[in-house]
């Protein structure tokens, strides 16, 4: 047995690790659509894929942190929409856009504190607590805007969502990539990141080992809300309006991307790379479907099927590992 190297089959490599499996799926998706339509792998289209992924992508970062820590945040998209409305209203009232954005972020942070308090102080399940907060944010968005889109005319603010560096890379894409790298490093390389895995893996053991699960999750709730508020601001800039209906359901899409990327709902497992690839698979698939002319209604079906497939692959991999 010793010293004898078994040649690894292609299947072994593909199923070797979660990121590898996902990466292969991603490549397959790209190849299939490229064969079906020559425009698919153009630079323009690639940028579009990233661009359309920014809102969900930013939210997926927050969700990945929280889900690994054994929590969850269903209030992000409602918060983002509410925040878009608030920023638009503030700009309309003549407040300079950086100040408006900062106020929006501060409100976001406050929502994060509320989420954390509900989950950590009152021991309400994160799913329920953030669902309630989500309803409140959604309602406030409608009340403030009276249900109508609030137009934004500040060119500088709009360019935050639309300006393309070198005419190619939109600022939101840059922000998204920067966040993924930054948060990926935090998660994998810092003691804070390690503590996220520990509290998600076993909250009580973490507490008894001198780690404060409430402190860590509070930071994560605030971070997630800040990212959500930022995503809402950027989305408003992109659309030139603050809309109470913007990005409805984006947080569920974000959770889907994270889980597709190998983040376990039970906590303690997953990483930013997986989440990123999960996000990309969904986006490439969606864009691919529209490029080959399939109705956008099918995108939702595709997302569901992709998720089921990823979970089955995960199951198959676990079974192989047990043998």
């Amino acid at each position: 047995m010793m010293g004898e190297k078994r040649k690894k089959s292609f299947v072994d490599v593909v199923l070797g690790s979660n990121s590898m499996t996902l990466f292969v799926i991603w490549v397959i998706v790209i190849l299939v659509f490229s064969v079906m339509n020559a425009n698919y792998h153009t630079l323009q289209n690639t940028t579009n894929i990233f661009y359309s992924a920014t809102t969900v992508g930013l939210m997926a970062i927050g969700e990945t942190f929280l889900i690994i820590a054994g929590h969850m945040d269903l209030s992000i998209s409602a918060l983002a929409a509410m925040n878009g409305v608030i920023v638009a209203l503030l700009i309309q009232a003549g407040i300079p856009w950086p100040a408006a954005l900062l106020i929006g972020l501060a409100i976001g942070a406050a929502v994060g504190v509320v989420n954390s308090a509900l989950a950590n102080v009152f021991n309400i399940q994160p799913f329920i607590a953030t669902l309630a907060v989500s309803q409140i944010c959604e309602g406030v968005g409608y009340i403030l805007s009276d249900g109508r889109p609030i137009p934004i005319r500040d060119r500088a603010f709009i360019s935050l969502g639309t300006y393309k560096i070198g005419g190619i890379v939109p600022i939101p894409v840059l922000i998204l990539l920067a966040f993924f790298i930054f948060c990926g490093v935090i998660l994998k390389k810092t003691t804070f990141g390690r503590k996220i895995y520990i509290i998600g893996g076993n909250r009580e053991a973490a507490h008894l080992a001198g780690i404060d699960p409430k402190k860590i999750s509070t930071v994560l709730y605030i971070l997630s809300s800040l990212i959500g508020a930022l995503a809402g601001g950027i989305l408003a800039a992109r659309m030139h309006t603050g809309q109470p209906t913007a990005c409805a359901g984006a947080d569920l899409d974000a959770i889907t991307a994270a889980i597709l990327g190998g983040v376990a709902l039970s906590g303690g497992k997953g990483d930013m790379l997986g989440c990123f690839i999960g996000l990309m698979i969904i986006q490439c698939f969606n864009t691919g479907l529209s490029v080959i002319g399939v109705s956008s209604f099918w995108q939702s079906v595709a997302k569901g099927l992709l998720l089921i497939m990823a979970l089955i692959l995960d199951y198959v991999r676990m079974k192989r590992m047990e043998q």
Partner: protein
Amino acid sequence: MEHELLLKNISKSFSGVQALKDITFQAKSGEIVALLGENGAGKSTLLKIMSGVYFQDAGEIYLDGQQMHFTSPLDAIRSGINIIYQERQLVYDLTVMENVYMENIPAKNGFVDYKNANARTQALIDMFGLPFKATDKVSSLNVAHQQMVEIIKAVRRKCPVIAFDEPTAPLTDSEIEGLYKIIRKLREEGKIILYVSHRLQELFDLTDRVVVMKDGVHVTTVHTSEVTSQDLVRYMVGRDLGDIYDRLDRCTKIGETLLEVKNLNNKWLKDVSFSLHEGEVLGFAGLIGAGRTETMRAIFGVDKLDSGQILIGGREVSIRSPKEAMKYGIGLCPEDRKHQGLVLGMNVRENISMSVLPSVVKNHFLNRQLEEELADKVIKQFSIKTPTSGKVVKELSGGNQQKVILGRWISTNPKILILDEPTKGIDVGAKAEIYQTVHDLAKAGIGVIFISSELTEVINVCENIVVMYEGRITAQLNREKDHVAEETVLSAAMDHLNK
């Protein structure tokens, strides 16, 4: 009716590792047969094959001369083999009756026939002389009674074979007596009883024969009355351990006071006062729920105190969280390894570094090399059996898991180390190593608090012993001076006896 169980040449391997090899033994009605072996000897695998969880690679199981083919646990139960596992197989929010009739609730026209089912369950409860009701919620029963519910379930299923996997692990000594009575009653009724335990004394108290296993092989089968515990240990570990307690290289030099607690009071504690010194191994004996764990949780900042003082090095301190306790040099290995001690999905390295993360940071980032060095040091110091520090801790044996937690706390350089049931469910060899480690730590000047529900262990390992009963300290004894006997400790642990 007489029954006979025969296992013939059972073999099973996992990923090329032989877990069981040619296991053959038989048992018949009215017999209690022990399965004995260290962790990893294959007892659990054997039980799982008998209960339809695993399927053997080779060999046959016969019950009353008929060959059994199990494809699921339900198959095994229907064929008459019922296993009572260490982890309770109960639904806590349902009643005793609903648990007892779990897979087979009596119904009339499609509706649950509560009257009939409750009456039948109550009859079984009364037959065993137990004090609870069929309509009680299982969550309202204590651990010992919950276990009885499992036994009643097995009896209700009319299984001729009932196997117990370490049934006494969560029980106190008086509860164990109750369990013995029930098991003996089952024997009289002609059941075949298989009994797995690490506690040798229990085998002598209870069993008729012992099947000894080692590394998946059946070493020997002996009549319990014809052997000594030394014999059993020798068969089990393949070498003569001698008397573990006699071989212990003890720390007897006691230094300055490290910790003093005065009149601790909270929901569970009443005026608890004691002190701990450098180099002292201080045992805490008592029944489960006597307040030993609760005392330590209060000191460690997990539970709040209503009143009382904690002095460390003579200075009064207020400890509000485990993190603060760590700052004062206190470490605590909790009683429930899997739920309170380890992050099971993480590897050995990550479980060790957990409490000392800042020490493996270089240039603001976690440093893999520093972390590996730390883990390797601990693995070597405690001879943890793991191929690498990257092994997921879930896959280690109980004894090695315990050493991982110990290693984690040693890495924090504690002055005071609290071990809550550190030897629960681990084999004799690993126990001996833990006893020695405890005394080695004491020699290095650490004050060690050693909580154990095994009286023999507390009496023989610890220099001083505190006995608790219902939240109070009822006795403080010295091993040498007081020639502590089990009876002395036991009577203090059951306070009403000496009133």
